[in-house]
């Protein structure tokens, strides 16, 4: 399978995430779209990892080339989890104070 397919897929998912960030006002949904972006990246990393692995495998049967991509994905998940905990805490805090999760609701800081 050509790598381009995966690239396009992931870019599409990523862009959908971006678009979601831009079009939604609910902080939680925006945050979910960011998670979607991260996942698109994850998939792309794995795809690349397999690409390099396949290339290396041709010359060396026991190679582990490409594994770093998957390790990276692991770390992204780790970080995402940490981020989610903090992010949701912030959103909840905001909700406590304003009873809203609308990102446009708080816009006193401007100009």
């Amino acid at each position, binding site marked *: 399978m050509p790598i381009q397919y995966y690239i396009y897929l992931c870019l599409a998912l990523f862009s959908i995430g*971006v678009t979601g*960030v*831009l079009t939604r006002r609910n902080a939680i949904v925006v945050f979910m779209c960011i998670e979607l972006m991260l996942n698109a990246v994850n998939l792309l990393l794995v795809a690349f990892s397999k690409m390099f692995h396949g290339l290396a495998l041709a010359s060396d049967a026991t190679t582990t080339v490409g594994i770093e991509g998957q390790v990276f994905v692991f770390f992204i998940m780790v970080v995402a989890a940490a981020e989610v905990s903090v992010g949701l805490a912030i959103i909840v805090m905001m909700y406590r104070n304003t009873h809203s999760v609308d*990102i*446009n609701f708080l*816009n*006193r*800081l*401007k*100009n």
Partner: protein
Amino acid sequence: MKVIIGFIVLWPLVGFLFNGLGRHFWSKKVVAYKATGYVVASFIASIFAFVQVQNQGAVSVHYFDFINTAHFKIPFDLKVDALSSLFLLVITGVGSLIHLYSTAYMKQESSSDYARYFSYLNLFIFSMLILVLGDNFVIMFIGWEGVGLCSYLLIGYWFTNTHFNYAAKKAFIMNRIGDLGFLLAIFWLIAKLGTVSYSEVFTAESIAKLSTTDITAITLLLFVGAMGKSAQIPLYTWLPDAMAGPTPVSALIHAATMVTAGIYMITRSHLLFSHSEMTQNLVAVIGISTALLGATIALKQNDIKKVLAYSTVSQLGYMFLGLGVGAYSGAVFHVITHAFFKALLFLGAGSVIHAMHHEQDIQKMGGLKSKLPITHLTFLIGCIAIAGIPPFSGFFSKDEILAAAYAKNPVYWFLAILGSAMTAFYMFRLYATTFLGKFRGTTEQDHHLHESPLAMTLPLIVLAVLSAIAGAIGIPEIMGGHHWIGQQLSSIVGAAKETTLTHTIEWALMGTSTMLALLACLFAINKYRQKADGEPTTPLGKLLFHKWYVDEFYDTLIVKPLNNFAGFLKNSIEKKVIDGAVNGTGKIVQYSARQLRLIQNGQVGYYILFMVFSIVLLLILWFNDTIILRFYYSLIK
């Protein structure tokens, strides 16, 4: 010699410092003695110097280097030669007399003002001495500006009077315009020759180095300088106004000495002038024009000093005519005689004014003959001298110029003789209105009329004698004289040119001028012995009375436009354009600040939108547009 010359110059300076610094401490008496004494001392030293020059010829002494750089040197040298020694005598001699005169004339002033007056006067003498003694143009220029300054200070001596101040300012500024010409001439010399010393400039080699253009330009510029200082058209209007100063000042500065500086300067640099036909012609034309202009205006003036002032302008015109036609020694001769008789006239006028309690309008005088006998007599001698009636001094000096003018161009002579007649007329009009007939002033003035004290009459007498006999130093050869002054100056200006005129013509010329002058005198005395000249009624009379409206003309054509221009620069250009541009920049920044901050609208959505677009923009910038076009092309394909 160094010491003598030093003394000549330093005494007046000492006097200036002494009186200027100690004006609150010394009594009037001390001031008067000191001031006069210093000038007299200077006079005595001048005599020594004169004698030395007679015996040894010109002497140049070096004191110190005024400017001495790697490329350029102006020494502070003073030089006494035949020309300057003559001037020295006149300056210090007449100067001493006028100092003496002033001691009495200025008696009413408070003691510090009195000291101030004398310090200025001393400073003037000092400057004038520097002017004539300087051995190069720069030193001369120092004196040149110095006398201008003193003139300014003395005209504005009564500084509380605004009109006097304006007169003083006018004098200084007009002089400055002339000085600019002089300066440029000096620069031109430096640029071409690298030196300004007379001894190096006035050599054949130097002259050879200069092209005709150079010489013409330099002489023209020098002449502009002379115009300013010696009140020639078009820079003459300051001189009549300068009569605002105390009368002795008018006598010393604005008649006898300072105004003749231009003649001195041109005589000094006659070598250059004689190489430029054009300049010479111009000098002559300007000279004769000024002479006529001054004379015509003087015809209708009623202020005793104004008449004398315009007469001075006119006489200076004659001197320039003389210079223009190459009669350098004639011009100098006239300077000397003019110094005597014009100083005499002014001092006489001063005596009259003194007696009349500062009344200067001749219409309010008359019949002073009996009340002021000495003044009257001396004044009359002055009038005769200036009118050019033999054997008084004015005749000889004027005659020499006239003769040279005739030799050059009879038209000059004709115009000059016309002017000469007018001179005789207005002088005797003045004399007659003032001294003859009956008194027209107030009774109070009448009551107080008195002859002036000895300190004032003594100078009058001395000057009257000199006016009468000074012609002796220049009796022309046809009258059997030796023309002593011509010989004196021959070392400077070369031997007088062989006149092409026959003796007959010379006699005829003399006769004509004398006749005309005499006729004019008699006519004037006849006309004005009983009544004064009222307000003029004829158009010409009005025109002359208002001095040809030259002042008004200058005012509307030069002064006002310049003033308006300055105002325009100040109020429009400076404020709106230049400062506006600077402040405008600031305003633009402020404005863009106000606009730019609106981008920051406080909404996260917008922020991220901007960020995404920015990334897109970065990508586009990075990969440049061709790649994107290629992509779309590939899509179509």
